[in-house]
Each structure stands twice: as C-alpha cells, then as structure tokens.
C-alpha cells in the first residue's frame, strides 16, 4: 500500500516540477514549486524521515513560496 502511495507521490512531484519549469505563467510555476515541497514532505514521512519532512513542509512549501512571490512582485515593479 505504502509503495503505491510513494509511487503516486513521486509521479505527482515529477509532474509538478515539470510544470514549474515549463509553465508560462510565473505565478502558476511558483505554486507548483510549493506543491512539490508539500508532496515531498509526505514522501519523506513515508520514508521514515519525520524531521526532514517537518523542514520541507515549513520551508519548502511555506516560506520559500511566499519569498518567491515577494521577489516576483518586486521584480515586476522595477520592470514597469
């Protein structure tokens, strides 16, 4: 059961990562990056690394997403 879940998570991470690279809309790409972190943290939990999962969930999907958005906003302002 857990191996099926792990494969599903791995596939989801792959799809989201490709979305993050190739999507034209930067906002969607940033959201996809955050979702990669979210799925990866569940995968780390399955692989018996709860401390890494905690870090990934808070930094990978929380803090880095909002930092990306702040930077995007700033770049857009200075391009106008």
């Amino acid at each position: 059961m857990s191996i099926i879940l792990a494969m599903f998570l791995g596939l989801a991470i792959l799809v989201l990562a490709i979305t993050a690279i190739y999507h034209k809309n930067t906002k969607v790409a940033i959201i996809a990056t955050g979702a990669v972190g979210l799925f990866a943290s569940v995968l780390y939990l399955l692989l018996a690394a709860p401390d890494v999962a905690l870090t990934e969930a808070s930094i990978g999907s929380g803090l880095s997403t909002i930092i990306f958005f702040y930077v995007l906003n700033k770049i857009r302002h200075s391009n106008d």
Partner: protein
Amino acid sequence: MIKKGILLLLLVGFVAVIGSLLINFTGSKELNPLARYYAENGPAEVGAANLVTAVVVTYRGFDTLGEVTILFIAAAIVGFLLKVLNADNGRPNKLRKTSEILETASTLLVPTIFMLGVYIFVNGHLTPGGGFQGGAVIATGVMMIILARPASQFNHKLISILESVSGVGFVAMGVLGLILASGFLNNAFLPLGKLGNLLSAGAIPIIYVFIGIKVGSELTGILNSLKENQNEI
C-alpha cells in the same frame, strides 16, 4: 544531428552508470562501524532519546554551528541589500483586503503554530525535529500573520536582539562544554538525567532552545525585510 547524438550518448551513459548502481545495490543488514558506535554508545554518552539529535548537536555539533552561521550570513545579506524604507513615504499603502476566512482562521491557528514550533524545539532530544524545524515552524506562523494582516509591523530591534542573544548563548554553551567537560559543544557538563525525560541529555535542550529562537528570528527577519520592501514604488 551531432548535438542530438551527443545528447543520446550522454543519456545512455547516465542510464548505464545509474542502472549498474541500482542493480548492484544490496541493502546492508547491519550498521556500519560508525553508525553502530552511535547507536550503542549514544544513549549512555549523550543521554538523548533521539539519536539524530545526539549526532547533530553533540557528535557533529560543530557542523550545526556552521549551518547556523550560514543562515545568519544569509539573513544579514538580505537585510543589508533590502534596507528598511521609511514607512511614511507619502504614498498611501495600497493593500488588498485579505479574505475573512484567512483573517478569522489566523487568530486560531497562529498561536497553535507557535506552540507547535516551541514544542518541536523543546522536545528536540526526545522526538523528531529540533531547533531548525521548530524555528522554521515559528517563522511559518509569522508568515501567516503577514498574510492575514499585511499592515502589521514587527519590531526590528526585538528580532535582532533575540537573534544575537541566542547566537551568543549557543556559542557560550559550546565554550562551557570546553571548560567544564571534555570538548567544544560537549553536553555532559549538566547532569544527563534519565533517558527520555524532558530534562535530560545535559545541555542539548538549552542549545536547541537557542537554535530554535535564532532560526525563527532570522527567518522572520528575512520575511519582514522582504515585506517592507514591497511598498516601494
């Protein structure tokens, strides 16, 4: 054509290298000597129920000091490059109103998130997690405050004082270990206590509280300086 051929060759080489690694991989049934040493002597020498913590804070404590320093330098550079602008630069702050759901939920969730962060770093020597994780969770709580109430201000002075005091405290615990016990960041100068108790493992809980506060205040500082720079233009 040649480009594609080289690419194909590279891919085949990749598959050959990784495939041979994968085929020859056999999970070892027993721990290697270093891991066995940690597993057998860790509880007696360090007194931490969580062996990862024993390695991170005591055996490899110097690495942790280096990581904390890296994070400190990163936060310092962000704060230096994004210098704080005056809040009253004559322009009205155009902030989009946040949704009521987020605002209401944040009043319930933010204290819970803070408490979870504190729990994680206080129990670092017993349960998974530790100073870094706890600090990051606390910074996530600050992020939620910023999202729910964009107009809220944070005290820069308080953040930097917390950050400096905990950094100095971390190094001071290391030096105390050097003087009173056998080496830098040795935790055995305080009583090790009973394995699994909250007050056990010598100085590890104190060091982790310092690391947690330090990481939390550094990440909060990064978020805060990015937030305050959004009002430009």
